[in-house]
């Protein structure tokens, strides 16, 4: 198995990871037909195609069905607490730019309990890839309305129908200062999902992909219309963005050339009600990354620590009469 090989050759560049090298020994326990499976596959393919060393790859998640993904990856994983995947990932990234950090989160996890972290993670713009598995419902806790649930959804907490209009994660993300990469994908067009994920991975900064994810268990037939009618999906293409494979282009004829640096159009697309925009809405590679801004100029060494401590002690020092005190500078 290639995994064993990689162990032996550990300090050498690996170019031979197969899909299997990214699969953990644990079989996914999602319901059959769950869109999370397609997302996991896209992740594993990306790792293979990019030849990401499993030991240099970290998948961080919160809590929910979606957040189980790290358990199924053969990589370092951190299945944290509800809503807090993003700050955990930020903590990892701040000292470890060498690690590839992915975050998987659900719509409840990200847009409800973790909403504050979500907004600030966009603002920090750290170099990581975030996959929002948006099934419009709480899965793991068995069907409660989520912030992205459609108005009128009957759920265990909204037996007479959800009262509020849904929150739109795309427009919200686009509205935060420092936003640098926003895309939308759907689990039922895996090729496109993969392409978008790859673009996100290559983006330096906080790349946010909202993935519409089917939950046959609690939202059966919810995305049927979009799944059945390719014209309901508007695919965004661009020379600097996605380039469609012919087979996708043939099926999904509703296309728009969208320059992902165009924020105004991105916002209009994100807000579209009748059609589903799929592709890269916004991509601005020039936004500075917090992890780079906060990286210390000099790496911490014992000598440096000693010097700085002594400088500080000097400032508040008391010396015996026999020893000269530092003189006040001019």
């Amino acid at each position, binding site marked *: 198995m290639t995994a064993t090989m*990689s*162990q032996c050759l*550990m300090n050498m560049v690996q170019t031979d990871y197969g899909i299997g090298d990214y699969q*953990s020994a644990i079989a996914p326990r999602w319901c059959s037909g769950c869109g999370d499976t397609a997302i996991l596959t896209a992740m594993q393919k990306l790792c293979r195609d990019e030849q990401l*060393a499993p*030991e240099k790859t*970290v998948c*961080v998640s919160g*809590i929910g069905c979606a957040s189980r993904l790290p*358990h199924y990856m053969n*990589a*370092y*994983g*951190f*299945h*944290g*607490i509800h809503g*807090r995947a993003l*700050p*955990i*990932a*930020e*903590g*990892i*990234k*701040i*000292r*470890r730019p*060498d*690690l590839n950090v992915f975050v998987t989160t659900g719509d409840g996890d990200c847009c409800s309990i973790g909403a*504050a*972290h979500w907004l*600030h993670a966009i603002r920090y713009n750290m170099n990581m890839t975030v996959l929002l598995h948006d099934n419009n419902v709480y899965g793991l806790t068995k069907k409660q309305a989520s912030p992205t649930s459609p108005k009128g959804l009957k759920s265990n907490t909204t037996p007479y129908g959800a009262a509020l209009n849904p929150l739109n994660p795309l427009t919200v993300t686009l509205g935060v200062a420092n936003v640098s990469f926003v895309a939308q994908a759907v689990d039922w067009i895996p090729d496109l999902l993969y392409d978008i994920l790859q673009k996100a991975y290559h983006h330096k900064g906080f790349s946010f992909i909202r993935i519409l994810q089917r939950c046959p268990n609690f939202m059966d037939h919810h995305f049927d219309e979009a799944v059945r009618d390719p014209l309901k999906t508007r695919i965004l293409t661009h020379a600097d963005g996605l380039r469609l494979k012919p087979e996708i282009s043939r099926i999904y004829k509703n296309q728009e050339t969208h320059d992902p640096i165009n924020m105004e159009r991105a916002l209009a697309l994100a807000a579209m009600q009748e059609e589903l925009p799929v592709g890269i809405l916004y991509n601005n590679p020039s936004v500075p990354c917090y992890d780079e801004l*906060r*990286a*210390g*100029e*000099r*790496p*911490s060494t*014992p000598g*440096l*620590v*000693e010097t*700085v*401590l*002594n400088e*500080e*002690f000097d400032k*508040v*020092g*008391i*010396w*015996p*009469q026999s*020893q000269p*005190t530092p*003189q*006040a500078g*001019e």
Partner: protein
Amino acid sequence: MTSDSSQPIAQDTPLPAAGSATGAKTAMRPAEVIHEHIIEIVSDSGEGAQRCGQSLASIAARSGMGIWTVEIIPAEIQPPPRSVAGASGNRVRMAAHKVTNVGDQADLVIAFNEQVLLSRLRAGEIKQGATILLEDMWKRDAHQPIADAYADVCAEIRAGGYRLIEVPMEAECQKYVPDPRKGKNMFVLGMLCSIYSLDEELAASQVKLTFIKKDRKIIDANLELMAAGRVWANDNLDMHYRIPAPPVEKPQVVTNGNAALALGVVASGMEVCAMYPITPATSASHYLSSIFEKVGCVVHQAEDEISAATFAIGASYAGKCAVTITSGPGLSLKQEAIGLAVMAEIPLVLIDVQRGGPSTGLPTKVEQSDLMAAIFGSHGDAPKVVMAVDSIEDCFYSVITARKIAETFNMVVMILSDAALSTAQQPFDRPVFSADWLAPPVNQSAVPPDAKPYDWDERTGIATRFIPGQPNGMHCLTGLAHDRNSRVAYDPKTNEEGLINRTRKLAALQKTLRLAPVFGDEEGDLLLIGWGSTRGAIEEAVTALRQEGHKVSSLHLKYLQPMASGIDEVMGRFKKVMTIENNWNDPLSDPLINSDNRRYSQLALLLRSRWLVDVDCWGKSHGQPLKPAQIKAAALAKLEQA
């Protein structure tokens, strides 16, 4: 224990006339030798009493005196000027010996207006008969109500038996600088240097150090004002003291508790501090922010405490232990994340600078009431280490120790400090850097085949952590119950195995702890037990009681979870045991309270439940540090009890 010689001079001392002074401009009286004094300097906020007090303390410390300073902080950011709530300044205790606490009441007070003075009087902070030096400009104020208020307070002070000396501070400063309001703190410093016979050159060098970043002109103006204050006091005041202090033998540093914590973070080799601003913890992160980047490290101001804690957990997970600093309400918010760190066995240092609670409580005031939250906080069984700092020096070294324990045991280590230590200053021996303090470099070597991420050692419960980047170590960490391979497990047996091992680590650590020696005799009539910042005050009270022939000793606990062995044995050697704590307990004097419903102080409750012994408690939740005299009185009452 102020010497008798510092007792007030007779009340009928002639009072100075406006603009002039007490005595004639005759030769200075010889200095009276005293052993200690507590001095308070209070002003409106922004008038510089804080800096004056700090400089005084530094000069005293450099002369070899023991000092302890405490900031007097108004509750509001911009209280109205000349208001009772607006008192801002510094309390400086100076002594011929080492000082470990704020002491009791002030011997001498300098106030910039009569209203801020009132606040200190009403708080009972000023000794009966103490000397009060008061800025007298208000009596000439054009606005009659101000002049009247001034006169009223002066009358009240005199009636109260204090020695009041009115001083034309601004009027004097006017002779040297255009804006006397800005400079009078240095004039006052000069006066204090005269009153306490402090070395002129030393004082000047301290002022130069204080203004090291300012330009020459400013330094010179300040030096001139200080000299003027000294001369004015020499000429006009009849008070002249000397506190004989042995010269400093070893290099020392003077910092407050929060700065010491921050320096400890640097010295521990931790590289990330994640925080969210909260009083009184914030100043530690302010100071850390100013120095941490110089060693390539980062203070991250997170969007909230939950984020700060999880950010620190992420940083720890990826390599070196990280720290998060907070106070009461922030600690509450971090509890879920603390549980995660416990479950996933991520090292984490959490510093809680306690303040008055619950809720937003008394944000700037002193209390030690988070002990239970620290030990039992979070949900389920979440064993973690809890230690308390008991001096400024201890703030520094505790962080280094905490990081080591956290990384050795892969545990959460909480350090409890409090508002009393956070802004209090005390000199301690200058630490000599040791590379052993630092965290080891991040281990990225390959994990041996077949090693398990939670391969708990049967004796200690410790497992070696795999750090991202280590080949072969891939696993998914989770807050769910898990087996040795970090696989989610729902069966009771696996869950129990994890619980046993996580708790076993505490027992393993406990075996390495040594109980601090008893302060006083090993046996006697009464044992006082304390923890945290109250140490100095308790020991001072015990010393006083013993001098009077009482068989009282004290024991101070550094580790609250786990506790070192031998506490029960020590308690057994005393007829009575009582904790002294700065947190709530139901007073038995309340008719509603009896042994069935009494709520005990937090440490007392722990000791009672653990050893089934009758531990009484005494404490206060009055927002102030406990004072030696209060503790002494409580101990005497306990001794007298049947």
